[in-house]
């Protein structure tokens, strides 16, 4: 700036001030001013910026370009002479503004929203007349939409720099494009997974805020998982359950919390699953909101469970319940039932009453469990049938219970000694209560298996209105209890049993061992869920409970010594329980879960919606084993058919990718994938043939012959070069 210009500068300020009346709009909530920065006057090629400077009253805010869960971005509508072109707002770094369960992105205090203005080569004016209509939404607890008309005349021949500092600050607060950063983005179910390399070194290892620049895509208030692996940042951003947009490119800003500088990222996102109903209006597509399982053409709609007439559903459910008794799941309960039948001195009426009590227990438990599941799903939980065994605390409780039952059968303690005398006599007077509770137990432990033919029906039932759904589950329970009820109603049943005698006591003792076997199985399940520490802690707790049960049973009378023993035993149990509790809530990290999925055979890989899509995109057939540690049928199949050398060889021969989706712990992605297959429980075996949109579902009791038949006609891969390239799998 020459000395002359500097001297003239106040003169030019005068007209600017006169117009300045029109450059400010004041409300109770904001003071908004149209400001300009033209340090070298206005001429082609010289820098010119305009902007709206908003000063908010305390606690009031306006919004960023993506306002977040509510709000509206500020808009600027320019009226400029020909040859003058205003660009878009260069949005400075916003702040996260949480409001209850919602999150907004915006500004408080003072913010300048600058725009860069281009001046055409033929501009010849002596002043620039700028008119602006601005709309903004200003909110504290309440929101007020406001707008202002602004007018400013800027001298062309002199410097306008009164707000140079404000412009400089605003430009410094612009998120900087991270030129060296590369982003890999994929949609995995309800999550946008990002792998970001090449971020500035000063961000490495730090927790960052993520600002989505596109509205209507992410769940702004949802927790964002982030992990630094060296200088690579992995982010898992939750998508909105009501996502309305599927942009091919997304933008986002990463920033250190509370800092005004951020890094701007732009990246392509492929494989958006259709937003609900967005695709060609197929009604089924509305049932497929945002899972990443099937972005392939033709599979988008997903197999919507076709409505089955209610009576037919009930009939199938009854048959399914009958067949449930043949599943390996029911084995522990079968042993208990045998003990029940082998009670001495049961007359016919008693036997019938017991059979009815067991049936009532089973049916009511099925209905209660299904009702709870429906309620939890209505509340938005991603749960499926068998969800109770996904809870480590529940598994621990069951294993303690089975341990106690086993000890009771061994005669370590008698129940009458443990319970308050009132309750004990109630039990003595009402032995049918026992049988009802056996029914409850049967459902708790055995129901997670979906019986043959029932997988589809259960999946469909859970999408029905509650009365229909619950009646299907009631029919399933009735079917499960039917053989026992029939046996107890059959008049010849009593004669069919051996005469009461010493063998009953021996048999009772023998039946303790299936109970302990069940404990072993449950401990293994728990070990899968929370690791070996949790399993060991639970063993300690079982030991303490067993000790206490024995002490309570063995100490007779009310003497001081007896009381001391009892208090001591109770203290041991309490201490053990306190020690076990945190271990039951340990999170097994993904590496362990992956290891359990791949442990049995190196040729299995962990399932994810993404890996499935990738394998299928590569044109390879895929077999998915939906399994869980607590599902005995699953484990049975895994160790027999799916471990069969012939089956594995057949899979290998046809280049089938083997995936295992482990549902031992709660997993929303797997629940969603099951739902899309029309199922809500495991086991499910899905075989994706190359070129076919829908997978073929194999039966729950998987046989070698069935797999062989399913693969018949598929081309074997050429045994020449590929064999050389692939190391022989372990045998």
């Amino acid at each position: 700036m020459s000395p002359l210009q500097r001297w003239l500068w106040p003169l030019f300020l005068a007209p600017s001030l006169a117009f300045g009346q029109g450059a400010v709009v004041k409300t109770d909530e904001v003071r908004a001013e149209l400001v300009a920065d033209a340090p070298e006057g206005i001429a082609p090629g010289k820098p010119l910026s305009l902007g709206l400077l908003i000063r908010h009253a305390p606690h009031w805010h306006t919004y960023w370009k993506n306002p977040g869960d509510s709000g509206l971005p500020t808009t600027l509508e320019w009226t400029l002479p020909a040859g003058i072109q205003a660009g878009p707002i260069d949005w400075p770094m916003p702040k996260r503004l949480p409001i209850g369960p919602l999150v907004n992105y915006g500004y408080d205090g003072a913010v300048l929203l600058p725009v860069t203005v281009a001046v055409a080569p033929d501009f010849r004016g002596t002043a620039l007349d700028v008119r602006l209509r601005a709309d903004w939404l200003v909110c504290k607890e309440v929101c007020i939409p406001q707008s202002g008309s602004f007018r400013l005349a800027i001298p062309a021949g002199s410097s306008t720099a009164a707000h140079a500092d404000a412009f400089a600050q605003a430009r410094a607060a612009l998120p900087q494009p991270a030129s060296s950063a590369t982003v890999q983005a994929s949609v995995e179910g309800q999550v946008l997974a990002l792998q970001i390399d090449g971020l500035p070194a000063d961000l490495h290892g730090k927790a960052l805020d993520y600002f989505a620049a596109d509205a209507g895509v992410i769940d702004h208030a949802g927790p964002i998982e982030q992990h630094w692996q060296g200088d690579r940042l992995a982010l898992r951003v939750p998508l909105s359950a009501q996502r309305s947009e599927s942009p091919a490119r997304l933008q986002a800003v990463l920033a250190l919390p509370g800092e005004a500088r951020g890094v701007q990222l732009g990246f392509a996102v492929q494989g958006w699953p259709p937003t609900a109903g967005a695709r060609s209006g197929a009604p089924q597509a509305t049932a497929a909101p945002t899972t990443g399982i099937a972005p392939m053409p033709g599979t988008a709609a997903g197999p919507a469970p076709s409505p089955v007439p209610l009576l037919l559903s009930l009939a199938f459910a009854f048959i399914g319940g009958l067949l449930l008794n043949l599943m390996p799941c029911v084995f522990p309960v079968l042993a208990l039932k045998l003990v029940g039948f082998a009670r001495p001195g049961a007359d016919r009426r008693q036997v019938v009453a017991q059979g009815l009590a067991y049936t009532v227990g089973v049916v009511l438990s099925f209905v209660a469990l299904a009702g709870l599941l429906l309620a939890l799903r209505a509340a938005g939980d991603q749960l499926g049938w068998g969800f109770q065994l996904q809870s480590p605390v529940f598994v621990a409780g069951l294993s303690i219970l089975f341990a106690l039952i086993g000890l009771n059968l061994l005669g370590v303690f008698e129940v009458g000694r443990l319970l308050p005398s009132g309750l004990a006599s109630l039990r003595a007077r009402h032995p049918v209560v026992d049988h009802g509770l056996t029914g409850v137990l049967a459902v708790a432990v055995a129901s997670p298996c979906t019986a043959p033919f029932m997988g589809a029906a259960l999946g469909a039932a859970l999408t029905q209105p509650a009365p229909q759904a619950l009646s299907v589950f009631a029919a399933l329970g009735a079917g499960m209890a039917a053989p026992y009820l029939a046996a107890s109603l059959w008049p010849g049943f009593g004669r069919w049993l051996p005469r009461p005698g010493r063998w009953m006591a021996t048999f009772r003792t023998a039946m303790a061992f299936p109970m302990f076997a069940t404990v072993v199985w449950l401990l293994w399940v728990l070990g899968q869920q929370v690791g070996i520490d949790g399993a060991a802690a639970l063993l300690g707790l079982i030991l303490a409970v067993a000790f206490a049960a024995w002490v309570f049973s063995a100490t007779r009378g009310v003497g001081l010594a007896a009381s001391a023993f009892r208090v001591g035993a109770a203290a041991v149990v309490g201490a053990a329980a306190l020690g076990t509790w945190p271990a039951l809530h340990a999170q097994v990290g993904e590496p362990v879960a992956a290891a359990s999925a791949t442990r049995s055979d190196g040729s299995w890989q962990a399932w994810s919606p993404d890996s499935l899509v990738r394998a299928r995109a590569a044109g390879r057939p895929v077999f998915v084993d939906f399994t869980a540690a607590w599902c005995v049928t699953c484990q049975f199949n895994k160790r027999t058919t799916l471990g069969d050398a012939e089956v594995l060889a057949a899979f290998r021969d046809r280049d089938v990718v083997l995936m295992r989706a482990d549902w031992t712990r709660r997993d929303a992605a797997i629940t969603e994938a099951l739902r899309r297959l029309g199922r809500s429980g495991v086991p499910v075996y899905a075989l994706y043939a190359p070129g076919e949109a829908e997978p073929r579902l194999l039966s729950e009791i998987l046989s070698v012959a069935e797999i062989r038949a399913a693969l018949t006609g598929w081309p074997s891969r050429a045994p020449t070069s590929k064999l050389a390239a692939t190391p022989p799998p372990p045998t």
Partner: protein
Amino acid sequence: MHAAILTSALAAGLLTAFGAAAQAVVGQPAPTFAAVDTSGKTVSLADYKGKHVVLEWVNPGCPFVQKHYNSGNMPATQKSATGQGVAWLSVSSTAKDAGDYRPPNDLAAWMRSKDGVPTATVMDTDGRIGRAYGARTTPHMYVIDPAGKLVYAGAIDSKPTSNAADIKTATNYVNQTIGEVLAGKPVSQPTTRAYGCSIKYPDAA
């Protein structure tokens, strides 16, 4: 068996099965609810089984709500929907300690003064219904089909402004959705971006 132990084991398992509530998803069963309306009657979503149901989040203090009520747009949409046999539930999830909370009588009087004709105006002062649906703004609109499935979630119309003059040129998504579902057609825009004021939920989760 051992009743006490069994019961506590089951109870423990069931308690831990409760997780964080997520949001309603279009194409899936809509969260069911029961709450009292402004006249003190209990209103349950199940009461309207077999009908289409519109849910409208409302707060008279919000300028975007005022845009659609003062212009007559929302009452007209309500009239059109209820005239076709659709149930319309206006829901207030505004917390009692929020500045623009209206007690039931006030809210009912305001609704009458605007010629609003919802089937019922539901008081959700603990925010449970709003959270279950993931309602973020007033207005925020949802349409549920007769089988209880959510078929629409989003804005009242396509112009996210507070300017009533924009209503004329905007697409009314609720009218569009109702027209399509009653004609047996698929919903062309099942999710849109709701716009408006933040819902003032109570602090307790």
